[in-house]
């Protein structure tokens, strides 16, 4: 009985973080875009528009759930849940602080990569089941894109695993403790001369991985699956109400998930860059709170970069997207992997 309660709690904790985060992120995105575009952004609901997204979600909940005729009902209904599940399940292996991780499995990174692939299946299901040519095109593009871009992501992850020697995100975060100097982007924890050899390679790896994760979450300049000016809104054109809200929630959850994976691998995860106030003051219980703070701040920073890119860049074309992945990212990341492996063997 107690076990069951602990399991349920364990499952619920990331959700308690994710839903408020998504609400905040939507508001944040609208404010960021407004700032970049010389507008005001939402400012009517609550002070400075803070409650705008809550009002939006309430509206979506109240809306009639329209199921178009001729859709494949089971697939159509399951797809939004599966999309959210795919991005939510990734949080199980992400360490929030040094005292909380949903499931401390040794194959953490591999698990995250595997489970995010569910999103591809769900998007294909949504696009196919909607029985609409635009959604089908969107889903096809999405599947091609996400599968292609997983390859450079995984190659970069492998090269980082070679440096760190672990696939467990918790251990990886603990490795990068105490100062910025130990972060993987700077070549990982102290290793003498190797660190300086690895530094540029890590930076290249980070850039490749960040670009690929952008493509995996379908954000501009890779928002081809939902390209508004071509495909109306891609694979979720036919969804409305709560099901649309699920896609929306999943998108923001995914943005945070990939950001935090990048942070965990390259930027020390939840580790503070300057050491902990709690340790200085001798308040050991304060340390996890600080760690959670840094976890959130780093995650939101990379989410902000995603938004920044979205409101600045145009969109690539399908074939250019594939060219970029197969002709540039994958070869570069492969060479990167080989060089890193050689340095580590020496």
């Amino acid at each position, binding site marked *: 009985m107690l076990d069951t309660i602990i399991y349920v709690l364990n499952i619920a904790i990331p959700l308690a973080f994710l839903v408020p985060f998504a609400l905040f992120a939507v508001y944040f995105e609208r404010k960021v*875009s407004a700032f*970049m*575009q*010389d*507008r005001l952004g939402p400012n009517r609901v609550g002070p400075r528009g803070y409650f705008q997204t809550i009002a939006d979600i309430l509206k979506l909940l109240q809306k009639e759930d329209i199921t178009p005729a001729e859709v494949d009902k089971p697939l159509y209904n399951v797809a939004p849940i599966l999309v959210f599940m795919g991005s939510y399940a990734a949080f199980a292996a992400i360490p929030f602080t040094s005292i909380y991780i949903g499931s401390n499995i040794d194959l953490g990174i591999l698990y995250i990569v595997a489970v995010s692939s569910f999103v591809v299946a769900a998007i294909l299901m949504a696009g196919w089941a909607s029985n609409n*040519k*635009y959604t089908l*095109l969107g889903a096809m593009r999405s599947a091609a894109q996400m599968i292609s871009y997983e390859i450079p992501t995984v190659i970069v992850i492998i090269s980082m695993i070679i440096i760190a020697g672990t696939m467990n995100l918790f251990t990886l975060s603990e490795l990068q403790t105490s100062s910025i100097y130990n972060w993987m982007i700077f070549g990982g924890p102290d290793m003498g001369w190797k660190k300086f050899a690895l530094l540029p390679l890590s930076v290249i790896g980070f850039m490749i991985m960040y670009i690929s994760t952008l493509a995996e979450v379908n954000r*501009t*300049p890779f*928002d*081809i699956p939902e*390209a*508004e*000016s*071509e495909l*109306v809104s891609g694979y979720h054109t036919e969804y409305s109400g709560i099901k649309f809200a699920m896609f929306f929630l999943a998108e923001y959850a995914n943005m945070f998930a990939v950001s935090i994976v990048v942070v965990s691998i390259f930027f020390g995860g939840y580790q503070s860059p300057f050491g902990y106030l709690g340790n200085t003051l001798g308040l050991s219980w304060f340390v996890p709170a600080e760690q959670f703070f840094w976890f959130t701040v780093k995650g939101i920073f990379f989410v902000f970069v995603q938004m920044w890119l979205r*409101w*600045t*860049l*145009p*969109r*690539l*074309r*399908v*074939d*250019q997207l594939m060219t970029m992945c197969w002709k540039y990212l994958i070869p570069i990341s492969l060479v990167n992997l080989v060089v890193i492996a050689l340095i580590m063997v020496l």
Partner: protein
Amino acid sequence: MKTEMMTLNMGPQHPSTHGVLRLELEIEGELVNKVIPHLGYLHRCFEKHCEALTYPQIIPYVDRMDYLASMNNEFGYVVTVEKLLGIEVPERVEYIRVIMAELQRIASHLVAVGTYGLDIGAFTPFLYTFRDREKILTLFEITCGARLLYNYMWIGGLSHDLHPDFVRLTKEFIEYFKPNLVELNNLLTYNKIFIDRTANIGILPADKAINFGITGPNLRASGVKWDLRRDDPYSIYDRFDFEIPVGKGTFGTVGDCWDRYYLRVLEMEQSLRIIEQAIDHIPEGDVQSAIPKRIKPPEGEIYARVENPKGELGFFIVSKGGLQPHRVKVRPPSFVNMGVLDEISKGHLVADVVAILGSIDIVLGEIDR
């Protein structure tokens, strides 16, 4: 592998058909084989309607054709009727008309450039261009009270004289707008992704452009130096010094989407030049002195054309000597320009059709009339 053709219906409610155009695309995967435009969703019987209206009553309807360039439409119409009536308008009117037409050309090109960015997926430049367009609309508003459909140019004159602040505000606008063009170029024009999406896409060679009757920026982007303001001057355009930019194929081939886009940016600079030359030399006078009491042209027919932001706008008016025209025929540049869509879209991807359509810059109000 045998693949089947899919017919994709794009529009009339689609975000990037710029209104209520319906495109029937025959696609193979994402490769486009054929584009069939279907028109008429915005048809308002303009030409037939004109036969029941007196000459001045037609002006507000002319506004509604190319609603992004109402001033230019009015310009074309009043020039035609004035030619039919054989009246000369005062210098002051001519100067004000030219200034208004060039301001409107900038406004129209700003919409074209901004929405083109939107078609390619860049949202922010769109809002920047609309922010600047807003300033031009404010200039129109203080002049005649309207922001979109002005009914400002009347046959033989203007509905209102300039606001005392107009000259100052226009100069302020020019100073404000010049750096913004540079910003636009840095943000969008020379963006690598943008160039990749538009260079070598939808190439329209000069001979094909002439065969299809393409006019305006689309023709000039193909490398043909043809501008009615210089080649068949109307009003007082022959007094101003300005260049006619042509497409050079900077990043691809002459006449590709990037050229068509960039030509509009260059034309905005030239329009600014014309305004700068005109704004200081507006003579004094009464803008309504030449307006005839009764507009009843003699029997006859007339064709006159002006350079609109979209291309050559022509009016053919047949008069039987009554208060109403017997027949009004419009040569709408958007309609003619759109004819080439199928020709240059073949073999491109669906995303390119959007890019090509945006680069042709159509306005449905004019296509359907």
